[in-house]
């Protein structure tokens, strides 16, 4: 196909599917905002999950290199944001041994979130230097190693993180619409990156690394770009998480959270943004419903008594079934497309995009 004959430029082609994610999400949020405050709080957590799933998609989904270490960047973002926003009077009490600058700087949530994204991006740029040279199993193992390193440091660096205990005193000033705004920004950024030349080159390397190298794609460099961008998105999610709950500890950002986000991404569809967002929404709702039943409450007047720990079992079994029966997820890793255009598989769309790139 020749680019000059293509009536829809790439950014516009991406705009449709992006609007198709952002607008329904806004409708969902508007409906939830009519409910009680408890429901809003749950929805804020759900939006933080959406941001994490999109962040993981930005690297894993587009590059095809698996990562179990991304929650480390959420941890970095959460601590950065907390250290900037805990009120100074509280801070002197909960973290008495903070070094000078950190002890005396207080910012708003928005500024703190931007700084959290920058710090998480800088950290991911640093670890990308060795890690992005790896692929396959070595990449998977090194991502676990990263998670362990960050947990070990956040647990023991007591003067800055408060140590193994819970860090408290973070203002819970994240509103439902504020959370939605961050999620929407992140979705737009991820979609723009996914349809950019860099994102397409990376996707080409996912489908066939050697062929992509042969046509001149610098695979390691493209992976680093995606890794840093996804690190920044995870940093935003960390800040949201901190300001959603108001308190957290180092072990909140370890295997359990990693697992939930991986489940979201795989159930929705690993290789599409639509899959990441819908997976996050579906799993968030499912976890919430099961958690309510576990604690003996009702959902839509229906109450099924479930033993504690049941929701993890359900998630695990759903994941097994999806992996065996529908490995491309509920969305088959498709993106939304303009109404009327024939739906095509993500793989076919990618092949077409690569052909466009080549002219």
């Amino acid at each position, binding site marked *: 196909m020749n680019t000059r004959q293509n009536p829809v430029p790439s950014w516009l082609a991406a705009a449709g599917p992006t609007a198709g994610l952002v607008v329904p999400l806004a409708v969902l949020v508007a409906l939830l905002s009519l409910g009680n405050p408890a429901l809003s709080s749950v929805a804020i957590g759900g939006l933080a999950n959406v941001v994490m799933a999109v962040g993981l998609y930005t690297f894993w989904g587009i590059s*095809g290199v*698996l990562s*179990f270490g991304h929650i480390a960047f959420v941890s970095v973002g959460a601590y950065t944001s907390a250290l900037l926003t805990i009120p100074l009077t509280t801070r002197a009490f909960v973290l008495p041994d903070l070094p000078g600058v950190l002890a005396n700087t207080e910012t708003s949530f928005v500024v703190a979130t931007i700084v959290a994204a920058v710090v998480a991006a800088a950290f991911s740029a640093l*670890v990308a230097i*060795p*890690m992005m*040279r*790896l*692929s*396959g*199993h*070595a990449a*998977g*193992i*090194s991502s*676990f*190693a*990263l998670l*362990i*390193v960050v947990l*070990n*440091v956040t*647990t*023991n660096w007591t003067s800055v993180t408060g140590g193994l205990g819970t860090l408290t005193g973070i203002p819970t000033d994240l509103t439902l619409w504020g959370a939605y705004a961050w999620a929407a920004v992140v979705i737009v950024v991820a979609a723009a990156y996914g349809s950019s030349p860099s994102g397409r080159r990376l996707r080409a390397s996912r489908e066939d690394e*050697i062929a992509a190298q042969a046509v001149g794609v610098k695979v390691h460099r493209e992976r680093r770009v995606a890794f840093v961008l996804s690190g920044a998105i995870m940093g935003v999610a960390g800040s949201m998480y901190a300001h959603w709950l108001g308190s957290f500890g180092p072990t909140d950002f370890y*295997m359990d959270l990693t*697992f939930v986000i*991986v*489940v979201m991404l*795989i159930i929705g569809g690993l290789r599409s943004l639509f899959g990441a967002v819908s997976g996050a929404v579906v799993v968030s709702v499912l976890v919430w419903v099961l958690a309510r039943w576990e604690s003996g409450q009702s959902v839509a007047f229906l109450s099924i008594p479930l*033993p*504690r*720990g*049941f929701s*993890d*079992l359900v*998630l*695990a*079994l759903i*994941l*097994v079934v999806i*992996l*065996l029966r529908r*490995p491309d997820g509920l969305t088959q890793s498709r993106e939304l497309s303009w109404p009327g255009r024939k739906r095509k598989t993500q793989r076919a769309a990618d092949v077409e995009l690569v052909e466009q790139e080549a002219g």
Partner: protein
Amino acid sequence: MTLLQNIITGISVGGLYSLYALGIAVVYGVAGIINFAHGYFIAFAAYVLLALAGVPVLVAIVCALAAGIAIAVATERGVFRFARGADPGTLLVLAFAVALAIKSLLTLVAGSDTVSTSFGSELAKPLQIGSLSIVWIDLVTIVVAGVMLAGLALLLNRTPVGVQLRAAAEDFTMARLVGVRSNRVMMVAFAVSGLLAGAGGLLLVARSGTLTPTSGLQPVLIAFVAVVIGGLGSLPGAVAGGFLLGGTTVALQVLLPEEIRPYRDAILYTLVIVILTFRPQGLLPSANERSRV
């Protein structure tokens, strides 16, 4: 004398890590799965041991080992058999899912609280040889690891099923063509890994005296690292990786100054990333794992 003592501790920890790593390596060799669920096989066997608190110790130990084998074979029959030939990433995530399923089952049945046991508490006493003082459990660990390693070597080199196992690990399709029954060899591989998990679970409980559903996490992460450092698909590599990791852990614990000792794991796992950067195929890669392009 303290040097000798530390070396013995290093060998003991290294032997334990080798058992963990071998369980991963045996399955990886045949099935191509990096089995994240292995850690929860370990936890499962340990819970069975604790559930049999009243019965004679020997019976309980045998039951725990059998439970390790049973859960490993069950996951092969129930899940992994249906995913043969899937790509490595899918298999890894699948193993991750099985791990969570076993963990949540353990939580449902036994609760998420820490359980303590007196199993192995008499082994915490030191054995005094001159000025040398060795904890009994270290000796037991070394003996158990030695017996398991020797037994596995015998099985692989001296029995027909062992030869079939090695053949399947070398080239699964070719092995099937010359008459190796794939279901059987797969089951044997999982059974061996389950036995190793059972032994690892017993040692884990005897060393720590406590157990939670997440007790399997640390061992499986150690095993992953040991296997990848040693060279995926290579059984001697897994053993070497286990001893290297165990020895380095003990050495860091002894040599690091007091104030940075809490960061031991951070240093250890940073080293892991650095080693992988320079040797992504591990230190002793097996021949058929080398990239051909």
